[in-house]
């Protein structure tokens, strides 16, 4: 049931039109609204299942989107009990506004940038370092510096002393990955977790090239409970699950580092 509520805004709007929206709230059960960044979406689905299994009557309504979208939803008053973003700067936009009632954010995972290279193509075949990927004739795709993954990419390039010449600065890290797995681009800078997922899902379509400086570019994922919510106690229990052994294990499997 929760799976169907992914991207629940549209589902709910359509639901209102056919008078079915209230159905998800019925039966006296408790609903926990969890807003999670796209990159941790699958881990959160797994944890939400575990959370529901241990608490009969509790439904976790998971909304997965880009961090800026999640923050915009919270600022505009969307129901939210737990908010997990992909970077601290985005989270700061919620915690800096006292009226939103956010608690103190807690880091629950880390991610580092990774260089993925397409298999096939002469230009791609010769790439063995970040400097190779920045060479003329190589189609390198990165995130725009305005979004978190692009910021990490810029810091990685600075740390490695390489000037990048991307052919495209995408708006989302998944768009970067898609351009590399499809062979449209020769190389791309994504997150380690994206590289892990790509290797699992499209074996043979990409390879990961080690960039030593990446270990020093650590992006922290913060989570917070929105204390004003009526389900704040459940929200705290969910955060405990996330930061406990179960959450740690699921995050590690997806390629996230420990905070």
């Amino acid at each position, binding site marked *: 049931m929760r799976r169907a509520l992914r991207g629940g805004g549209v589902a709910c709007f359509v639901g209102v039109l056919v008078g079915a929206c209230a159905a998800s709230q019925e039966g006296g059960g408790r609903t926990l609204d969890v807003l999670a960044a796209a990159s941790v979406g699958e881990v959160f689905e797994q944890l939400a299942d575990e959370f529901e299994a241990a608490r009969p009557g509790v439904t976790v309504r998971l909304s997965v989107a880009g961090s800026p979208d999640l923050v915009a939803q919270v600022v505009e008053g969307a129901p939210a009990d737990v908010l997990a973003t992909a970077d601290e700067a985005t989270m700061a936009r919620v915690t800096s506004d006292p009226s939103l009632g956010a608690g103190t954010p807690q880091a629950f995972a880390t991610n580092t940038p990774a260089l993925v290279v397409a298999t096939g193509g002469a230009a791609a075949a010769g790439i063995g370092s970040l400097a190779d990927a920045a060479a003329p004739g190589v189609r390198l795709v990165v995130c*725009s510096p*305005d*979004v978190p993954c692009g910021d990490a990419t810029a810091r990685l390039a600075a740390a490695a002393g390489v000037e990048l010449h991307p*052919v*495209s600065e995408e*708006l989302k890290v998944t768009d970067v990955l898609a*351009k590399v797995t499809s*062979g*449209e681009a020769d190389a791309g800078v994504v997150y380690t977790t994206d590289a892990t997922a790509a290797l699992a899902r499209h074996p043979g379509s990409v390879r990961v090239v080690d960039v030593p400086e990446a270990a020093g570019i650590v992006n922290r994922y913060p989570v917070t409970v929105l204390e004003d919510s009526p389900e704040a106690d459940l929200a705290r229990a969910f955060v405990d699950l996330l930061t406990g052994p179960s959450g740690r294990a699921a995050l590690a499997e997806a390629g996230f580092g420990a905070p």
Partner: protein
Amino acid sequence: MRRSAIPTAGTAATVPGWVVAVAVAGATFVAVPVLVLGGRADWAGLPTLVTTPEALDALGLSLWTAVASTLACVVLGVPLALVLARTWFPGHAVLRAVVLLPLVLPPVVSGLALLATLGRRGPVGAVLEDLGVGVAFTTTAVVVAHTYVSLPFLVLSVEGALRVAGTRGELAAATLGASPSRTFWIVTLPAIGPAVAGGALLAFARSLGEFGATLTFAGSLQGITRTLPIEIYLLRETDPDAAVALSMLLVVAALVVVAVVHSAGGTRGLRAALGRQHA
């Protein structure tokens, strides 16, 4: 909906009150979000917000790619409309449906289709790559994406006008000994001039607003492929005020296009074509 069903002044009295009430609600539904967005704009800071180098690059790129794709639409679309309006052959209806496809396809699907064909590993793209004229990540890709999604507007507009104009003038010219080409240039084209202009303006507006197909197919790099709508989407993350300011620029552009097209009656052909399609 036949052409005669297009209301003219004086028909309001025959419309039931509840229909008017729903119509008012419909108009409100369309107008209010744009007005509220306008209310959020920082009008005093607007000149500064829309003249940053990034915004000017995006605006310039959007304008010239929209002009280029509009020209491409006219060059490809007028002959296409002429064939659809003046000839019949097996598969005519299928061709018509295919040409209109980008009108109803989600732009991201159009983008994926273009990528599959013209991308580096696509059947056409691979050949172009070998010839050294690959379109991936170039401004050409933006123009291609714009042309793809805008072409139906021009074809519909011109085809409708051709059917409304009829073939009498063309037959007369042929009787007087004019060749088909000469008839096209001196009889057909002048007759559909306003419809071509109207369709071109609609295609231009569609190009200016293109987002999904461009982002999917062309990518996003300042001054090369990052058009105004993509810049707006990107700015939303870091500078919502600037995003709203640039949005206002597109709203004004859209209003101007709609006003010009409507006052010139340029959508008559389009409406006629759509009307006949549903009749």
